[in-house]
């Protein structure tokens, strides 16, 4: 290598290193700056509008010790989990069932696609009317919000399975059930995982928002109740905990996804 080239290459390597440090430092700095801004904002705006971060932290600690926070978290997670299971089951099962009856599919599909446009949250008062003020309306909400992305993904995935593979399997003598299991399920796995990444955080969000509207337990209830009592610290606490929870689940999902699908060629279009 000529001296000139060596010089350029070393320059390049140093520049990359410097950039990495700068980016990390910038991120840490920005995070710290945001926290400071929060504190200053709280001091300036007064306890009515903005809760002091220190007080929020204290509230989190005290609520955790008293157990009430954990109870709320548990209730919300349980709600999200059950609703997710219901929505997921239907979302996966329905396309497979529809696959066997093409005429039904043709009839039903446009309505399902049209109903995507309905804001499901708006249905909550209706659910309350129908199912009472217990967990039921919230479960319906979560279930519906989970159902749609899963259904669409599985449905599209089944549609896109290579017909050649299915024919081959039939020729070899596989039963319909086996075909469903081997060929189709594996083919739509990546679509399913992408939908999962959307549906799981949605389930949690839906649970929280459902709790805004009905119920007397859970994170959403805690936030709304605090608001009605003008307990700003409580509102902030609830929001912080809810946000952290969702972000943790998101991060865990990303990690799981990477682990299980590491052997698949990554399709950039499916990220985020």
């Amino acid at each position, binding site marked *: 290598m000529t001296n000139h080239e060596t010089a350029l290459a070393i320059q390049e390597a140093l520049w990359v290193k410097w950039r990495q440090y700068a980016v990390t430092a*910038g991120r840490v700095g920005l995070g710290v700056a945001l926290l400071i801004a929060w504190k200053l904002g709280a001091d300036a705006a007064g306890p009515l509008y903005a809760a002091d971060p220190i007080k929020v932290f204290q509230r989190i600690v005290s609520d955790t010790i008293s157990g009430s926070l954990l109870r709320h978290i548990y209730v919300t997670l349980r709600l999200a989990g059950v609703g997710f299971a219901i929505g997921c089951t239907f979302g996966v099962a329905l396309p497979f069932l529809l696959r066997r009856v093409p005429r039904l599919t043709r009839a039903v599909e446009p309505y399902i696609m049209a109903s995507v446009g309905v804001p499901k*949250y*708006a249905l*909550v008062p209706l659910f309350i009317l129908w199912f009472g003020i217990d967990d039921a309306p919230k479960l319906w909400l979560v279930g519906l919000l989970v159902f749609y992305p899963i259904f669409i993904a599985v449905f599209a995935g089944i549609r896109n399975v290579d017909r050649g593979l299915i024919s081959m399997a039939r020729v070899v003598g596989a039963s319909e059930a086996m075909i469903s299991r081997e060929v189709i399920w594996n083919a739509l796995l990546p679509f399913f995982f992408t939908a999962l990444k959307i549906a799981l955080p949605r389930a949690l969000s839906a649970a*929280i*928002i459902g709790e805004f509207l009905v119920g007397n337990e859970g994170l959403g209830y805690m936030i*709304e109740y605090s*608001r009605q009592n003008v307990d700003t610290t409580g509102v902030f606490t609830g929001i912080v905990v809810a946000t952290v929870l969702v*972000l943790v689940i998101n991060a865990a999902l990303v990690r799981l996804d990477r682990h299980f699908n590491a052997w698949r060629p990554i399709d950039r279009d499916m990220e985020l």
Partner: protein
Amino acid sequence: MVVMLAIWQGLSAAFGTYWIGSPWGVAARLASGVVSGETLRHASYTLLEATAGFLIGGLPAAALPFALRRLPIVTAILDPFMVAGYGAPKLALAPLFILWFGIGIESKIALVAITVFFIVYFSALAGVRALDSRLVQMAQVMGADERDLARHIVFPGAVPYIFAGFRIAMPYSIGGAVIAELISANRGLGYLVQLGAMNFDTTAVFVALAATICIVFLGNWSVNAVERRLLRWRPRPGLDVQGGS
């Protein structure tokens, strides 16, 4: 279609209009609501919230990646915060905004704006990143400076991506407005839904829901119409005029 209506009517008759408003009743109520202007008033209120929030959140979000194009370090620094913002449940902030801005229109607009912001940001970022370097080189050879590049190459190339983001964000904007109204409001379609439910007036609820669906269609249509106009230069999928002379 007719079958669906028949099923709907059947269910309504079977369960009674307490549970399911009959299609006839809903249509009649909807018509009277439109005529009296009441439904339209509430609908326009919700639409206003959604549109204002959409623009307040969407336009800066679309502009930000352009502004930061020459500063990749800043974009990298912001990235985890943006991802966190995208993943965090913005709708959970609804009570906070109501606390801050009251039950009026501002809290709804704020909620919609922040929801739309993160969605559009990532779409716009993808659009700016999808820059075809050969086009850039070509323009540079012809004497384009940074401003020319941004205006003639980067921006038009990113517009399809930005509109994809708009299309995704639009239902969220209406949904966000409605949700905020459900929690606390005295006007708007969400308020109507809540009111109908509290009065055990299922038909009213159905009417409000039907109006909401209409607005969603309207929103979809608008975004698509604007996109079609701006993106006339895009090849329509399936048609190919390649090859030969």
